[in-house]
């Protein structure tokens, strides 16, 4: 019987050990093969989640028209706001599906952002810290830190990348690099808008790939001795080819991209719908992917935020997000965990909605839109050990300022740093870890305490779990 090429390749873990550090012309990668870790304090990660999904509403959702509803001069007449629970009013026009799922979801209404412009805000959302241009080239995205943390836990059967992105190339700052971490912790960013979505190889295509890859390897071996000593980059690329082949040849990969018309209809055939559907499939495949960052673009409605004629408005974006997140929660919540029959996949998956800031409260502006607003905004959390149905923090009657931070730090509203501390905690990662041997020699804390204007609290939002 003919051997498949995958049988003769070293196991993926060995490939990783051989090293895939290929950052061209950079000093950093070699020195940092083994990041030196130090604990910057004590944290007690919960480890309640095996997976995390971050849905980023890029451009910023209006807090006061949605999950922190405040009637204002700008409230359109057709929002169909109804009471969901004692303490919660929600627009059924914007969220017909999520309004049925609010017992699974907790809202943090007291968020505060360092940023008020998108480029910096979206960087903040991906890097978990404000942009420092002097240091930016060495700062990894949070997903890459998670990939780094989980590397030792990968099984030989894990072929999928630990960190998957969806539409990150549409973010103002693009998909961030791995910074000082080796490039093998890079995001594999699937773009649902440009059409390069992972690829659905049928049996014949897999056979052809197998045949071609075998030829590539044979040719490569034929001249191997002649090409030693040209530096690490070319050798590293061979390792990437091996993992790429392993992924493409694993029938779980195309299966994760196979989306039925019925599922597309439920989730929505758009960036966030397909992103959440892919996230669901990746989690169900259990093939190595642990963290998925889905970027949902085009929320920045300075004009015509509630104009039905407008090509992009809050009705459209909220409805897209609504069906995507609601169905993700439903599907994960109705699938038993293969590890623990008493749990569902949602119990093992932290799902977070994050956005870079809020939108100006009160009347709409001269262009019938809402501008950027950082003094209060919100974030949603579900699954992965989070107790649903909570509201954490509270704002005044117009959604202008936070009256109650909702957690034990009464003077410090939670920030993106704390959202990530929460994600790290749920995934069982000590978020007070520091990497000390960075190229700049400045220690990288998983959750930074250097805010734009003050020293931050680097704690998780513990109230979500208890």
């Amino acid at each position, binding site marked *: 019987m003919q051997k498949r090429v995958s049988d003769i390749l070293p196991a993926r873990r060995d490939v990783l050990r051989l090293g895939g550090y290929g950052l061209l012309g950079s000093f950093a990668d070699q020195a940092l093969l083994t990041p030196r870790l130090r604990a910057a304090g004590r944290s007690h990660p919960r480890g309640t989640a095996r997976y995390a999904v971050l849905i980023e509403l890029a451009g910023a959702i209006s807090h006061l028209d949605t999950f922190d509803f405040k009637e204002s001069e700008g409230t359109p007449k057709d929002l169909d706001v109804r009471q969901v629970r004692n303490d919660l009013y929600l627009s059924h026009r914007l969220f017909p599906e999520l309004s049925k799922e609010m017992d699974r979801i907790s809202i943090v209404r007291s968020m505060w952002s360092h940023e008020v412009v998108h480029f910096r805000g979206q960087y903040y959302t991906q890097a978990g810290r404000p942009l420092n241009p002097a240091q930016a080239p060495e700062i990894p995205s949070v997903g890459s830190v998670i990939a780094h943390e989980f590397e030792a836990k990968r099984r030989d059967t894990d072929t999928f990348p630990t960190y998957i992105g969806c539409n990150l*190339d549409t973010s103002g700052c693009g998909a961030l690099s791995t910074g000082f971490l080796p490039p093998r912790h890079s995001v594999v960013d699937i773009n649902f808008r440009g059409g*390069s979505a992972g690829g659905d190889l049928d049996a014949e295509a897999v056979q052809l790939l197998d045949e071609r890859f075998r*030829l590539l390897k044979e040719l490569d071996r034929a001249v191997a001795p002649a090409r030693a000593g040209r530096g690490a*980059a070319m050798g590293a690329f061979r390792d990437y080819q091996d993992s790429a082949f392993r992924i493409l040849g694993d029938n779980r990969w195309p299966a994760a991209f196979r989306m039925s018309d019925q599922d597309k209809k439920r989730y929505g055939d758009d960036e966030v719908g397909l992103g959440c559907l892919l996230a669901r499939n990746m989690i169900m495949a259990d093939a190595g992917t642990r963290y998925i960052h889905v970027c949902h673009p085009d929320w920045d409605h300075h004009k015509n935020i509630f104009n039905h004629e407008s090509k992009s408005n809050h009705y459209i974006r909220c409805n897209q997000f609504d069906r995507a997140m609601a169905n993700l929660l439903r599907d994960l919540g109705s699938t038993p965990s293969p590890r623990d029959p008493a749990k569902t996949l949602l119990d093992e998956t932290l799902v977070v909605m994050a956005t870079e800031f809020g939108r100006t409260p009160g009347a709409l502006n001269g262009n019938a839109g809402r501008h950027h607003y950082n003094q209060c905004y919100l974030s949603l959390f579900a699954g992965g050990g989070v107790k649903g149905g909570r509201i954490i923090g509270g704002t005044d009657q117009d959604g202008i300022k936070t009256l109650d931070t909702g957690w034990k730090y009464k003077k410090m509203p939670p920030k993106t740093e704390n959202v990530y501390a929460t994600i790290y905690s749920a995934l069982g990662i000590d978020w007070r870890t520091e990497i000390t041997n960075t190229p700049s020699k400045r220690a990288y804390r998983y959750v930074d305490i250097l805010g734009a204007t003050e020293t931050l609290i680097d704690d998780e939002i513990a109230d979500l779990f208890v």
Partner: protein
Amino acid sequence: MGFGIVEPVDDFDLNRYDPKNPPPAPWTIQPSNPALLDALAVDFQKSNYSFKTLARRIMKSSAYQLSSRFPGEWKETYAPYYARKYVRLLSAAELHDAIAVATARPGNYSSGDAKVPMVQQMAEPKKAPGEVQAFMRTFGQSTRDDMPKKTAPSSLQAMVLMQSKLVTSRVLALDNSRVQALLASKASDRELVNQLYIATLSRRPAQAEAEVALRAVAKDRRRGAENLQWALINSPEFLFNY
């Protein structure tokens, strides 16, 4: 050269340039070789600011012509001194165009009012068709002007090269592709293999490679030739400048 006399190349600091007028500690002189930088500048002025002359001067230098192989143990700290040729992945546009040339399947892209065969000839590469853009983004072509990206290779790039239509459709014996023309010609198997190597890697195959390639072609001439060009395009030798 792959590495600037000043790094990063877009971060020249004129207060840290002159060794006779050094900056206060802890600042250091920025160019790795201030005398060389100065000599190049003077030469550039004397040539009436001719970039062609400057490029010729650099390319004829022994530093430029060094092999990418370094005799002895390489240390990354040697990098500023041009002690060897630096290996680099082709840029997104270079790679796309190199594939078009190797397969004899040029593109047909709009650049202003004209049609051009190569992405690098486009006035605005961002206006390339969607699949070309998606391909180039994978290799670090920025969608924005304000954030040039480092192109660290990843398994995503390898995946895209293996299955992007920009590669897989171009290697097929269709639409006047190189493979189609070679199959239609009277070329022997050995000549076919030689031609594919020359077109893709600018060299003839080594004996050991030729044996492998000939076996593939002998089994199924068309499929073998298509697979061979796919494999050559996917080989690090094609993807890297070394």
